[in-house]
């Protein structure tokens, strides 16, 4: 993965000093609440219900063992022994002290980490596929470009105070796993007719109050121009995006107001001036960064391993886990492994300090000292030998990291919600926990099969509820907490936004509501259908009819 040089290190060190002084001035009353707000937000610091929340950047989801050990130490020293991995592939601390943030940043800087632009109205952490570099269907490894873009976006002076937050995702696979159509800018890397890396650019996608899929603004962009083209897009947005109403301030609203064609022509007019400007990426720079992402020194292994096959045959628990948690790898004899942060009855995405140390050790011992955070809020060891999988499983299982539910109903994506987040309409974690307990039966979960259930505590949609096969959204009705349910949303190449099934439910009703949705699916499915297929084929009606039917006996 990318290693800092002197330039990178100097920047984060200077950032620590800058933020330390900003905090000092705030505490001394030299900065008002309002003036400090964007400063702390651009450093990932929210003021939440109980305490500030600090969001630490994990650029495109990649971490080294050393970094994860440091994060574990920080959660131990400055927080309550755990951290929360978010859908933005970042790590959130729920209980840090405002006065101690500069010290936390200083510790992060020692392992080439920071909290820059993890919140606020600026370009946020650039996200990508958690299997980048190892996925068999990968056409272009997006990580080098993601790093080049990370550097470019860091303290970009022209875009320091945008109308609203700005999220970029990049992907280089046939099957999109980075949800590029759901971002302010999405970039899909591919090889064009001349076998050159090119980019398909999407703009104006997003979740939140007005969920919408992005539109293609350019089918073919040469990679060298990624930065200047983004500058053209964001410049048009910075000037013309609405600033009077924060709900209408995202770029998607501007794109919609102008229409994609008019927006495109304004961007192209701007880009005519910016094309080939000094921010054009050079071959040398891409090569320098790409060196950090070269293939690992893999051993030459056969495609099968006898000890692995034997363990699968003799140990059903291991086999169950392997079925859900292993992912195909470019290199023969290797697998990518998802470690579940979704044990039943615990807050999705949370990891304790001890668990972080365990994962860091596992990565060190079995996966070249690196790991990734997925936007589904799990941790990934990307490069494990078949012959090591049993040992990995045993250690993961002993530490509550091997729930064999990856991709199943209880692998819930869930935002922090009303327990922590001051914007929330309703709690989300207890809903996730209750649903996990309702379905706490592995055979049954496997029978239900692949399904995505996403929960957000409010319209801001941090839990991506719109693109859940089942989406749950916390809403406020006369000051009490209710939940609106949608079905049929999806990520991936066939991304879609879910449809609301009807009036909202109380927290107590939720496990039964999900149970009824599943019952309809089980009853109606054809042998090869997953939940999403059945939901798409039948539409909302039969689900709605059954969920809202009064006290009927199960058919």
């Amino acid at each position, binding site marked *: 993965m990318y290693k800092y040089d002197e330039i990178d290190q100097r920047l984060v060190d200077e950032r620590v000093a800058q933020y330390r002084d900003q905090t000092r001035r705030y505490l001394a009353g030299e*900065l008002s609440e309002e003036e400090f707000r964007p400063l702390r937000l651009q450093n990932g610091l929210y003021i939440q219900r109980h305490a500030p929340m600090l969001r630490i950047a994990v650029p495109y989801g990649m971490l080294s063992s050393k970094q994860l050990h440091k994060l574990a130490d920080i959660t131990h020293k400055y927080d309550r022994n755990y951290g929360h991995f978010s859908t933005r592939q970042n790590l959130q601390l729920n209980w840090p002290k405002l006065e101690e943030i500069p010290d936390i940043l200083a510790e992060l800087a020692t392992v080439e980490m920071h909290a820059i632009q993890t919140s606020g109205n600026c370009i946020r952490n650039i996200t990508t596929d958690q299997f980048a570099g190892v996925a068999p269907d990968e056409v272009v490894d997006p990580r080098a470009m993601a790093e080049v873009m990370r550097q470019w976006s860091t*303290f970009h002076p022209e875009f320091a105070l*945008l109308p609203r937050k700005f999220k970029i995702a990049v992907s280089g696979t046939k099957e999109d796993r980075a949800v590029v159509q759901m971002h302010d800018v999405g970039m899909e890397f591919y090889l064009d007719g001349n076998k050159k890396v090119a980019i398909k650019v999407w703009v104006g996608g997003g979740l939140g109050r007005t969920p919408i899929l992005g539109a293609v603004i350019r089918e073919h962009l040469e990679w060298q121009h990624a930065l200047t083209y983004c500058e053209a897009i964001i410049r048009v947005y910075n000037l*013309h995006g609405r600033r009077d109403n924060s709900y209408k301030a995202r770029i998607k609203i501007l794109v919609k107001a102008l229409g994609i064609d008019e927006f495109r022509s304004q961007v192209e007019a701007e880009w005519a*001036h910016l094309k080939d400007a*000094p921010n054009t990426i050079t071959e040398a720079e891409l090569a320098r960064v790409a060196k950090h992402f070269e293939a690992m020194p893999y051993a030459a292994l056969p495609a099968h391993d006898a000890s692995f096959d034997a363990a699968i045959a003799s140990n059903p628990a291991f086999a169950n886990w392997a079925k859900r948690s292993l992912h195909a790898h470019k290199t023969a004899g290797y697998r990518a492994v998802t470690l579940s942060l979704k044990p039943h009855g615990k807050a999705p995405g949370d990891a304790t300090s001890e668990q972080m140390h365990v994962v860091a050790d596992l990565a060190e011992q079995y996966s070249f000292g690196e790991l990734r955070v997925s936007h589904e809020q799990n941790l990934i060891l990307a490069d494990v030998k078949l012959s090591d999988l049993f040992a990995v499983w045993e250690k993961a299982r002993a530490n509550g990291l091997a729930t064999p539910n990856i991709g199943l109903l209880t692998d819930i994506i869930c935002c922090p919600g009303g327990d922590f987040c001051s914007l929330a309409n309703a709690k989300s974690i207890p809903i996730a926990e209750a649903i996990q307990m309702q379905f706490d039966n592995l055979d049954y979960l496997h029978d239900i099969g692949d399904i995505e259930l996403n929960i957000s505590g409010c319209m801001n949609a941090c839990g991506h509820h719109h693109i859940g096969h089942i989406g749950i959204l916390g809403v406020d009705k006369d000051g009490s907490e209710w939940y609106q349910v949608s079905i049929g949303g999806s990520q991936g190449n066939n991304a879609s936004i879910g449809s609301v099934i009807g009036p909202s439910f109380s927290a107590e009703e939720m496990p039964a509501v999900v149970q009824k949705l599943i019952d309809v699916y089980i009853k109606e499915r054809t042998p090869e259908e997953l939940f999403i297929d059945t939901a798409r084929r039948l539409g909302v009606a039969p689900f709605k009819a059954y969920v809202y039917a009064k006290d009927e006996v199960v058919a």
Partner: protein
Amino acid sequence: MSQLIKLNDNVAHIAENEWAVVQLPPSLVEARKQAGKVVLFKLTGEKTVSEEQLSGTVIPESGKVIVPLSVFIARKTQLQSRINAGEIGVWVDTHEVLADLALHQADLNQLPIIAVHVERFADGRNFTLGVLLRTRYGFKNELRAIGDVLRDQLFFLKRSGFNSYLIRADRNAEEAMLSLKDFSAPYQGAVDEPRPAFVRYNRTA
């Protein structure tokens, strides 16, 4: 003490302010300015400044003055001799369109100063306006940030082409000056240093 910071050859210092800013008389449409121009004004065809405001703006008889863009355009003939004498600068609001200025003043460098007024410090349109004035319109003279100008935006203003900053009256300009040096080796090319780090440095790793 003066609230004005100026940058000469990358050295910041506190300077006397020679320029008086002329304000428009207040009006009722003011509240709509925060909205994006294209979305709001193109669709509604609204103007932000009324005829009464334009004619009612009081411009001092002598001395160096920075007038609002709309007033500059509407009353340019009246101001022409003073423009020639180098006594007139123009200020634009963040929702205004630079093309309007260029249309009425072909040679921007005839103006000794252009100021960009920011009503709320969190409005980042001023950065783009600075960049465009420098790179698109070739403006070479003093480019000043006025209005809600605070220390923690100075570094970005500098990189966006501003070389003078009128710090808000209740803040210490001397201390604010320190933040112009917050970062010594920024990544991306911008107005003050067009070459990105990967061109400036030999970054072999």
